[in-house]
């Protein structure tokens, strides 16, 4: 590919870094200046990402605005970024949540300079994860995001922060280093097939699509699939690798929790969707049942454990385990509705859980406790807060009309359809058990609401609390816009990602030679969701969405 130089995506990636450099020159005691600077920088980044959204076209599944700058070309490591339907909303979510959490962080009263430095660095890292198209660049951003987060927990965390930060760091680092080894093997395999040693995702996928990549490799695909999947499963996190999450969430400062739940967890599901599905089609199909079972265990287990918690943050953390279970459940149902649902649920989980953590943070700034036993009867004291909390909580439950519902419903529908068809060895019992997770979610969240807001006031401190300030209501209000928008008119969000999601599904399910390839511009997904190859439009025989027996025979003859 010809070098394109840096463009819009790189500019957005660079904005927080520039902000961080400016921040370095502010004196550490100028707390106001530091906070305002960060807020402005993250705000500008958000606006810039809106401009990116405006340029984004939902008519293609290919990567758009691809930027390519040679770096270590002899090793196949080049700076390459681009955006498609799967990443665009996560990109937007990142800039939005970072902006909002940096506004909340006006509450931070200790060591502001490094704190906001970490937020800015984290933003670049997260945006980089969602846009990189070279695996080493991806890995770099993926790992870099660990450091600021770990430091945030380390320095501004709660009592048990040392343990939580180390655990968070080790879990994710340990899992991803084997992904790195997997990447090297992939690059080598690509070299064996095509003669080019590269870490370019698009090149890999192209070789996978043509079927040459995994020819005569035996178990290799399975091993590499798990080396990738493990890194993402830990990040999601899925049962049984979820134990770092409650610790990290409980100890992290509020902004850290918002970003952690809102964006960092999505890196896991994004990775599954972006890398595992297109690159390891056969392995995905063979292992879907294992991952689905883990997801369902996560849904139910997370819900049950959440119901037992006495700490608000821990409860929401376990509810994240359950919700992310739904995302994975949807994605690995491997049908259109399911993957769309999983991908959509990612965003909504970011919004609802982000908002929940924000509200908990606002409460914590007043009460300095997160234990249910210290609360009760808050509704009378803070009516506005209670109302907002109720809406956000219901969106997390998945009430129709709010944003939690469509994604969860679609994921369930997809999972049910797959199981009903008996595809991939999935049993019908899976969707039924997953369905109970929705009921549990209602149980523990309503329970929490009851314990916090109703009942007698037992703690005299409650009587002194003040309701939300105007700017705080406005801050939560931004979340509420998306809560209603996502619930009432999900098409705004579903439409742009539909083609990319569809293409990824066909990359996974179609037989080799029939898979869409990111580097082959002649492939496109048409309005009906079918794969078409534009050069051959003249011949109707080449319209295909379903591969017939004849097609397969012809492909055999052609030696594909």
């Amino acid at each position, binding site marked *: 590919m010809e070098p394109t130089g840096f463009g819009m995506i790189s500019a957005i990636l660079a904005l927080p870094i520039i902000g961080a450099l400016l921040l370095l020159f502010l004196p*550490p005691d100028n707390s106001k200046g530091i906070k305002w600077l960060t807020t402005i920088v993250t705000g500008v980044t958000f606006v810039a990402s809106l401009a990116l959204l405006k340029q984004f076209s939902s008519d293609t599944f290919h990567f758009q605005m691809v930027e390519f700058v*040679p*770096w*270590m*070309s*002899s*090793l196949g*490591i080049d700076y390459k970024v681009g955006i498609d339907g799967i990443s665009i909303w996560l990109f937007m979510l990142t800039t939005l949540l970072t902006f909002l959490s940096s506004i909340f962080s006006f509450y931070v009263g*200790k*060591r502001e300079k*490094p704190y906001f430095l970490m937020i800015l660095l984290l933003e670049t890292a997260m945006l980089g994860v969602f846009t990189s198209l070279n695996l*080493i660049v991806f*890995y*770099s*951003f993926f*790992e*870099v995001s*660990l*450091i600021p987060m*770990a*430091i945030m927990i*380390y*320095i501004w965390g709660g009592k048990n922060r*040392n343990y939580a*930060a*180390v655990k968070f*760091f*080790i879990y994710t*680092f*340990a899992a991803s*280093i*084997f992904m*790195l*080894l997997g990447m*090297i*093997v992939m*690059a*080598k395999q690509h070299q064996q097939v095509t003669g080019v040693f590269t870490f370019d995702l698009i090149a890999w996928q192209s070789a996978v699509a043509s079927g040459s990549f995994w020819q005569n490799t035996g178990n290799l695909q399975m091993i590499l699939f798990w080396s990738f999947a493990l890194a993402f499963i830990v990040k999601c996190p899925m049962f049984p690798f979820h134990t770092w999450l409650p610790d990290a969430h409980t100890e992290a400062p509020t902004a850290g929790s918002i970003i952690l739940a809102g964006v960092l967890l999505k890196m896991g599901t994004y990775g599954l969707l972006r890398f595992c599905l297109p690159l390891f089609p056969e392995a995905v199909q063979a292992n879907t049942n294992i991952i689905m079972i883990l997801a369902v265990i996560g849904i139910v287990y997370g819900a049950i454990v959440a119901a037992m918690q006495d700490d608000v943050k821990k409860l929401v953390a376990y509810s994240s385990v359950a919700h992310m279970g739904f995302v994975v459940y949807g994605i690995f149902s491997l049908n259109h509705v399911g993957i769309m649902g999983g991908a959509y649920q990612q965003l909504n989980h970011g919004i609802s859980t982000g908002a929940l953590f924000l509200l908990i943070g606002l409460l914590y700034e007043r009460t300095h406790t997160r234990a249910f036993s210290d609360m009760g009867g808050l509704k009378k004291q803070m009516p506005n807060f209670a109302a907002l909390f109720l809406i956000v909580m219901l969106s997390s439950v998945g009430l129709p009309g709010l944003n939690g519902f469509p994604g969860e419903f679609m994921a369930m529908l997809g999972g049910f359809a797959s199981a009903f068809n008996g595809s991939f060895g999935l049993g019908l019992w899976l969707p039924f058990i997953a369905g109970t997770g929705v009921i549990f979610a209602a149980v523990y969240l309503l329970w929490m609401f009851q314990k916090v807001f109703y009942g007698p006031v037992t703690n005299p401190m409650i009587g002194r609390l003040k309701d939300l300030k105007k700017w705080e209501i406005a801050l939560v209000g931004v979340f509420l816009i998306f809560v209603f928008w996502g619930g009432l008119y999900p098409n705004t969000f579903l439409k742009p990602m539909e083609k990319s999601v569809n293409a990824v599904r066909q990359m996974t399910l179609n037989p080799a030679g029939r898979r869409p390839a990111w580097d082959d511009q002649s492939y496109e997904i048409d309005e009906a969701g079918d794969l078409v190859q534009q050069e051959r439009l003249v011949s109707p025989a080449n319209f295909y969405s379903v591969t017939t027996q004849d097609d397969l025979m012809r492909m055999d003859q052609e030696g594909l």
Partner: protein
Amino acid sequence: MNFPTMDWTILMPTIVVIVTGIAALIVEMLRPKQNNNLIVGVSLVGLGYAAFLLFQQIGAPTATTAGGLVLRDQFAVLAQLITVGVTMLCFLFSEGYLREKRIAFGEFYPLAMWAASGGMMMASTNNMLMMFVGLEILSISLYCLAGMARREQRSEESALKYFLMGAFASAVLLYGIAFLFGASGTLDVSGFREAMQSDIDHLKSFALLGLAMMIVGLGFKAALVPFHQWTPDVYQGAPTNVTAFMAAASKIAAFAGLYRVLAGAVDLQSYYMDVMVVLAILTMSIGNLVALVQKDVKRALGYSSIAHAGYIMVGLLAHLNSPDKINLGSVLFYLLSYSLMTVGAFAVISLTAKGGKEGTRTQDLNGMWKKAPLAAGSLLFFVVSLIGMPPTAGFFGKLFIFKDAWNSGLQTLAIALAINSVISVFYYLQIVRAAFVDDEDVYSPQMSSMSSGLRLTCILCILGIGGATLFAQPILNVTNQAGKELNVYKHDIEDVNDDVVDSSVTPVPGLTGSEAAGG
């Protein structure tokens, strides 16, 4: 009597370093004790000139001089260049540290430069006697330097320990050289080859015995497990700037020597490969595992340097295992990044010296973020690089070594390296944590303020690590020129030993002897 013709360009860098050392010593004698700035200045200028001379020789053709005693190839030039650079970095922050520690002796600079010159000799020879001379110059200077803090018991202990064990290791090396000489009648590493090709069987066993002893002797310097016992004590006891120098410059020299020997003995590979693989795994694992329980930063970093020696060993073995595919690019890149991050980390730790005292326990770093934010930030950066987190040079160095190990069929080593990276996170994080923790700790150690030299060292190391990442491609283009000789050499062997199965290494797939000769 005929003197061999001398190619002075090849010898010049080493000579410049030695002469600068002498000049620095003269300045030291002429100047009052209080101020060593002039010495530092002279030393930096001299070293800078040597670096310039070396820089000019990058890409120059391989040549020998002084009757074959001194060899210039890409590996020699680059290893020497890194050594000189490391020495300069150590000098930059030394003065402030030595003053705080109240041992501002001007002798440090000449001794360190002579040590560096010894290392440079080791890197640029295939002659075992020359290598021994270089090793001794390096070692004896380091023995003195380790004991430089004369009033500290720990420093004296470390010097004595280093001296006794080092002398023993040198003796073993020398004994090995004697065996090689006995087996082949030459002191050049090519003696291994001659011995292997001879018809007399016991010559082979002598050569093998000699090789084993040389590996022990040089492995001691490189701190390979199980010859590493001295490292933590000496690293802890020696003044921090000396430790930084030892961890970087002396390690480069040791690896250069090890490389020369192992490359020369490439047709004994079937004998030593398995042993070296085990040594590399042990070195990585034990280095990291023991570092986990250390309470002293310098000790922890000492063990970390052992672990890193293991990583470098992996790269070296990958090259030796398949020189047709893999050159020394990754090893040199790793040596470069490792030197920068290690020197940087030790430089930051030298801040704990104040008023003649120095605390090196982990908690002695407490509160550094407040007292010296730049130092704390740099420490974070260096540690991140030492862990091997992207996007630092430490990560890319590790990545290249991973790739090499995998490509040359040493998958076990690659996986061991991955597992070790995870283990190492624990103790590195403890170091960073100490520098960043806050009020909860009652213990607040004293810390000297940052000297401008230290500030410069930190900035240069960060720039170097960042630059190595950004410009990895040009750097690799240069470093990958190193190690090409072995490929040619090995093919020669395969031509000669076509039918001697057990002495030659695994045949290179796709390359027959005739093709190789043609290419």
